[in-house]
């Protein structure tokens, strides 16, 4: 390999302990050294959500190959932050999609409750694993986890937009 992986600063889970979580920041101990205000970022939020890169300001502290291998408390704290940073309602049912003045009005039921939002014509992206990403006119994303498992009506509406 041309680029040695060692240059990638891989963080072994055992070296990392998360002690605090605040909205989009965590306090983290790496090799016992406490670093405050660390921002976790996913390089592949859809294809490899388990990979997380930790940033302190602009500096890259290292890559967690799979954050789920952290100890339970660290993992829970990190997930709390990831939930904020990668907030994305999951669409469970599509109640209606209708065209309104060149836009589309979606009425959906998500894991965060019932929602209404507007999209442009081209708004659905099919992710490689088959999940659907719907983007509204404000560029907010909504995800459909298993489109084929939705009820018939929802699937009919979605197929209209893909």
């Amino acid at each position, binding site marked *: *390999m*041309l*680029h040695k*992986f060692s*240059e*990638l600063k*891989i963080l072994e889970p055992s070296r990392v302990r998360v002690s605090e979580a605040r909205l989009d920041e965590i306090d983290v101990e790496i090799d016992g050294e406490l670093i405050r205000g660390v921002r976790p*970022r*996913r*390089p*592949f*939020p*859809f*294809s*490899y959500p388990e*990979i997380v*890169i930790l940033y302190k300001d602009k500096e890259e502290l290292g*890559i967690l*190959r799979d954050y789920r291998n952290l100890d339970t408390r660290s993992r829970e704290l990190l997930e709390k932050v990831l939930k904020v940073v990668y907030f994305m309602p999951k669409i469970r049912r599509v109640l209606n999609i209708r065209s309104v003045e060149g836009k589309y009005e979606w009425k959906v039921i998500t894991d965060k409750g019932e929602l209404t939002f507007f999209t442009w014509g081209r708004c659905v*992206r099919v992710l490689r694993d088959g999940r659907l990403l719907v983007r509204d006119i404000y560029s907010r994303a909504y995800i459909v986890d298993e489109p084929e498992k939705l009820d018939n009506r929802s699937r009919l509406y979605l197929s209209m937009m893909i």
Partner: protein
Amino acid sequence: MSHAEDNSILVYPSPDEIPLFVKDLLQNGEEVVAVVKTDLVGGDYGEEQVVLTNRRIMVVNEKLSNSLPLSKVVAASIRGYINTCVLTVDTEEGSNSLAVFTRGRLEAFDKFVTIINNMVVGKIPYELLKNQLLSKMKEGQKQRSVRAAILRLLGLLKPIAPLLVASVVVAVAIRLVGLVQPYLMKILVDDVLTAGRADLLIYVIVGLLAINLVNTLLNTLNAFFGTKLNVAIVNTLRSRVYRKLHELSLTHYDRFGSGGLWSRVVDDVNRVQWFLTSAFIPLFINASMVAFVGVTLATLNLWLTLIALMPIPVSVAGNLIYRKAASRYYHRLWRKWSRIVSVISDTINAAILVKSFGKEEDFTKKFEGYQTDYERAQMDVFKFEQQIWPAVGLAFTASSLLIWWFGGHDVLKGSMSLGSLMAFTSYMWQFYSPVFGLIENVRNLQLLAVAAGRIFEILDLEPDVQEAPDAIDVELDGGIECENVWFTYDGIHYALKGVTLRIRRGERIGLVGPSGSGKTTLAKLFLHLYDPQVGSIKYDDTDAKRIKLNSLKDQVAIVLQNPVLLDATIADNIALGKGDVAPEEIIAAAKAAKAHDFVMKLPEAYDSEVGMQGSRLSGGERARVALAAALLKNPKVLILDEPTAALDALTEDEVTEELEKMTKGRTTIIIAHRLSTLRFTDRIVVMENGKVVEEGTHEDLLQRDGLYKKLWEAQLRGLTRMTTIEANEQVSREEYVTQVQ
């Protein structure tokens, strides 16, 4: 008008193909290699034969008018003017203009020139040249008649033949069932109502019901087969053409242009489908209808049938006149419309121009003028149509009135039943439409052949870059040898003229030279995207032609000047060059290409979509993604065409530094305009006008008073000027601040 023979070139003609007066000129052992014909003699239309033999080039106009021994020829070329081209042959004494022809013959003369150059410049062994030409010539001869095109099209559609047959059968059946109804009505009127046979009534009613049921069923089947057939035709043809696209060489893409290929894959395929379903299938339907209904009519009443045929010639004539003139009227209408569209488009797209020059009033006037023109053209179409159709309509009215007149008399006389007359008029209308349909079908068949021909043109292309049957997988070591390479994209202009270059394993070469000097072409040849017409490119002593294309492309990576990205995610674009890629490798490659930081700033990071052709990224970002893709392949040979052109000075510096690290020990060819990018290369090769003109290290080249020194000094001057401007700006800013204070 262009004829097929316009661009024919006779290659190694058989004795009877050689004109007698040419044969007479041949000396002992002299063999005709190629013959082309001009269409001009001097400044007038006329014909001359230009003959290439193994010894000389002759121009023959009934008798020999010019002759030049090949031993004196340095190279041949074509000079192009607006309409004409001149075949020119350079000798050591100077250039000779041998023959003039219009651009209509350019293709043939192109080949002719290439053959001459292959002999005198490329010095290709004569036997090899002859074999190549003879084998190529056999491929070139293809017939293109309407019948042949349609038969071939049907051959392509063989897999869906059952569907095609079923569609025709069902469609014919519908028409035939339709014929029974008037017959039943005749029985109803004559035998049941008039003759009072009440017992038959129930049979007639049940018969009518049955016919309607069968008809409904057949119509459903017809719609089903029709839809299925349409999709099947398009899919069968399009996947054939699409697969062919991947086989084509880049030269074909250059020749047809992306728009041209696009229209073959999308438009022509649709056209074939449309003509097939609207001309080919109806042809059978209409022909069978004309036969059945014609016979039925004649059986009912021969005299009336002849009257019924009367308006047909009038209508055919009307149709022909209409078609001939309508295209003119409609074309005019379309031209007027497109002018309106172009004003609207200018107004919207060049709004800033219109506004900044205060041209709103002019545009509005122009627009309104065009609107009026359009309205006038529309009215002309209306007037024109009114001259034809009423006359045709009158002919039909006259014939049907005559039928009622004579038929009415027959019924009153008792020589014809009322039911028969009613059936006759009903059949008569069923007779007209298939007759006109047939005329339309024949015309559409020709259009079908044209559209099919355009598809075959693509399917018949032979890729220029073909893998040798005995091509092998080779583990490259990194040495490249380029021996007397000549290359031309168009057969006229040579982008490379005898380039010889040896690159050692692990050597880092900088390729510099003015735009159009052949740097990028050479790089593309290294990747075997094209084959040189003359000369060879070898990788560690193996000719590129003998290496499997995929094997070469796995080990040689190129980053193009304006890199093209796929409409996919950044991760997909980086992983393109390699099959199974771990996410860490993607990150590592991106870091090496200085792409990681900007990628991580995007909310979706590596999962971000780049848009059509990478439109959501800036030029510099695209360049870095493309570089990452090339690095991920871990290629033995890395070719970078202006890798830093789209980068700002700071990033360029960073990338150059990174490039230096990762190219260490790897054969690398860097094409650069900014000479500072080349500071770490082992050797710099300077190209000009398709040739290598200088070679050496940066210091060596500066010592020589050559092109490199000029380029270097020009860039230094540019830099100094920039620094001076910046300094001046700084001064004036300071002055400004002082004044304000």
